[in-house]
């Protein structure tokens, strides 16, 4: 099973988006989905250490992990944390270019069907094209 990691500047947002993706996708408890957010003191920001620790915990339980970050330093910190992993683990992680909420949701749906990492990453990316309005 592919795991999903939501990375946000806010711990609340990360948890909330994680809950939406887990709950609304119907993935239930089958897909390991975690939310990581906030700096080391819990304020707005991102901590490489927190992402690294979460990856180290979720990777042994999954065939691969898709990270869905919000923006800016969430992306840089995710890349840095992946770079600190042993190469064989780093090869099982993809950082998604998808919008955070829609991407996490689509990824959870795809992962719950038992798809591989490439397919889960692809579905998340397709979330970019979800149309909400004509404006």
């Amino acid at each position: 099973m592919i795991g999903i990691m939501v990375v946000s500047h806010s711990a609340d947002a990360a948890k909330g988006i994680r809950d939406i993706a887990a709950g609304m996708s119907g993935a239930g408890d089958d897909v390991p989905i975690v939310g990581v957010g906030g700096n080391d003191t819990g304020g707005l920001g991102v901590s490489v250490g927190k992402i690294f620790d979460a990856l180290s915990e979720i990777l042994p339980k999954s065939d691969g992990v898709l990270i869905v970050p919000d923006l800016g330093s969430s992306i840089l910190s995710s890349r840095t944390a992946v770079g600190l992993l042993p190469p064989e683990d780093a090869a099982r992680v993809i950082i998604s270019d998808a919008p955070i909420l829609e991407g996490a949701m689509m990824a959870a749906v795809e992962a719950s069907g038992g798809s591989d990492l490439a397919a889960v990453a692809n579905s998340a990316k397709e979330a970019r094209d979800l149309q909400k309005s004509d404006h």
Partner: protein
Amino acid sequence: MAFTVKMAIAAMEKFNAVIEEKKEYLTDLDSAIGDADHGINMNRGMKRIMEKVRGKEYADFGGIFRDVAMTIMSVVGGSAGPLYGTFFMKFGQKLGTKSEASAGEMADALQEGLAGVMSLGKSAPGDKTMVDSLEPALRALKESADGDEAAAWNKAVAEAEKGVEATIPMLARRGRSSYLGERSIGHQDPGATSSLYLISCFRDAFLEG
């Protein structure tokens, strides 16, 4: 005279002091085009680094810069954390078990650090980032490393200063400031500014021996 581990620790002490002194200035620069946290973040990061590094014995550059890198990465929540963290990590890895380095070897390490920053941030010279002061400093240090090493460090700082000034008319292409588009023009880049301080602190630690 070679650059020693003791000088590296002194350079970090100096960097901590300069960041403390300039934190409001850096934050002012960052409030014009970023999220106004660069000074505060770097200040917090450097303080924690010094708590970790002070009083500890380091046999080589690899050891001290690994501590510096891991601390700044976990403490600094903005982009400066992973960027400076990667810089120090690659810088220290290149010097590895050495306890002394020539200006040429320091330039090689600087080059590794810069390459790490550019690869992580997908940035290039001219994007209005820390690369714009580190890259000219590296070029100067490399070109003059075979002559008088003190002069080479002075040249590196002088070129980094020019690099910082050159960020003012640049259009930001990376980070939060790039969301401003044309409005980023006319402001000095805070990351390039703090990187200039870092190079100056290396120079000062070297000159003071």
